[in-house]
């Protein structure tokens, strides 16, 4: 097993091969929409595109996203080698057109051309007690990132107080404001509590869960279920064309907050919901 090549394969899989849980959810959405409706046509196009990308090994979406990597590694391992492997793989994946060059210097507005730059790819490291390495990759498009939002409770305009009812209101407001712009139907990650930074981080990490997997916290599991039902009543539909499916899933996580603050962060990911992981144990690599 060569780490950098394994990393490249992880990127290739993420950008071309949509995970089964997402594809199944899209197919179920297709079945729900009425014959001849714009919503059904959109889902038909999406399903055709998913198949084509997998078959041709080309990107599902031309916005191959920001490259976001979470590494869990055993005691004594080096962060440096994962960063080097990630950079090599990102540059190589760009050459092979698995990734579009998506790293732009915000001051000069110059695109680096190879997805490498200051803090690009984004890497998060975590040391754990297992004797294996887990590398999780998310390719997150810019359109869906732009419709993410952070609220602080209470919110007077939305009459949202400091409780789960208030959390529900701000999530509904965020999804209503997003309309079709984040490539609906989206998947919603909610971070409740923490400071501003950790709140957003928590909302985004939710995306590594599988669709349909409920929170282990019964209050949050109930919130997820209620929001899933409510959001799909909005009628925004795929691409904002109207329809029965506005979101494919809702995940919520919580963390303790300062008494004075109550942040609710909402991360939105498009239907082209691309995340994969690999487990490295000795010389064996398994992808999921």
């Amino acid at each position, binding site marked *: 097993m060569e780490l950098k090549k394994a990393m490249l394969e992880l990127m290739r899989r993420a950008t071309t091969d949509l995970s089964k849980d997402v594809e199944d959810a899209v197919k179920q959405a297709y079945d729900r929409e009425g014959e001849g409706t*714009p919503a059904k046509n*959109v889902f038909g*196009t*999406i399903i*055709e*595109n998913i198949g*084509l*990308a997998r078959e*041709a090994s*080309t*990107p*599902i*979406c*031309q*916005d*191959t996203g920001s490259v976001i990597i979470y590494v869990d590694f055993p005691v004594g391992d080096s962060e440096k080698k994962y960063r080097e492997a990630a950079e090599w793989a990102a540059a190589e994946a760009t050459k092979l*057109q698995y*990734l*579009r*060059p*998506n790293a*732009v210097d915000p001051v000069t*507005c*110059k*695109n680096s*051309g190879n997805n490498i730059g200051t803090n690009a790819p984004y890497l998060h490291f975590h040391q754990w007690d297992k004797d294996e390495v887990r590398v999780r990759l998310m390719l997150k*498009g*810019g*359109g869906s990132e*732009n419709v993410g939002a952070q609220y602080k409770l209470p919110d007077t305009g*939305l*009459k*949202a107080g400091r409780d789960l009812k208030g959390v*529900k*209101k701000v999530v*509904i*407001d965020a999804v*209503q404001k997003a*309309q*079709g*712009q*984040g*490539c609906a139907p989206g998947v919603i990650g909610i971070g409740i509590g923490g400071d501003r930074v950790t709140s957003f981080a928590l909302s985004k990490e939710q995306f590594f869960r599988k669709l349909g997997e409920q929170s282990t916290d019964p209050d949050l599991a109930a919130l997820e279920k209620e929001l899933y039902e*409510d959001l799909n*009543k*909005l*009628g*925004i*539909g795929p*691409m*904002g*064309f*109207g329809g029965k499916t506005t979101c494919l899933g809702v995940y919520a996580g919580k963390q303790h907050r300062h008494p004075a603050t109550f942040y609710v962060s909402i991360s939105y990911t*498009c*239907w*082209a919901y691309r995340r994969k992981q690999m487990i490295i144990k000795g010389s064996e690599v398994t992808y999921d």
Partner: protein
Amino acid sequence: MIKLTTPISEETARSLKVGDEVLLTGTIVTARDAAHKLMIEERPDFIREHLKDGVIYHCGPVVKKDEAGEYSFVAAGTTTSSREEPYQAAVCEEYSVRAVIGKGGMGPKTAEGLQKVGAVYLHAVGGAGSLIGKMVKKVHTVYKLEEFGTPEAFWVCEVEDFPCVVTMDSHGGSLHKDIAAASQKVANDLMGL
């Protein structure tokens, strides 16, 4: 299904209505954030001939360059159009653009511009990168590649039977406005507002 071929006359653009499904064939020009800013701040002439009675495509493609130096699109779906809201109406007017292809729709300033100029907003399926990439038959030329980078450059290319839906027309109609109003009502009920 309505067949549309570039160049598109003002009369043809004005005949289209929200809900019409079209198959577009001809030359289109990709332009997104940096390109729109440039078109308003500097009003460059190099792009004029490609945009007169032509089509702007909100897209940042994944592009392949072969050994002979020829470009082709590997994936080329729509990007979110609302970021061009500050510029779009003026760009359409300056360059006599007849159609803008994107996703997510645009706001009142663009809606007004479409009415004034005689142009439409066409919606394609966002994220369908591989599928739409196949409809791009040829890349004619590119401008500002070095300066703007691949996603932001002006790619002038040829499409065949590119399926889109008219979601904003030159009569003030907008599917996006209607859906947003309807979903806001539901959201208000759900939030108890």
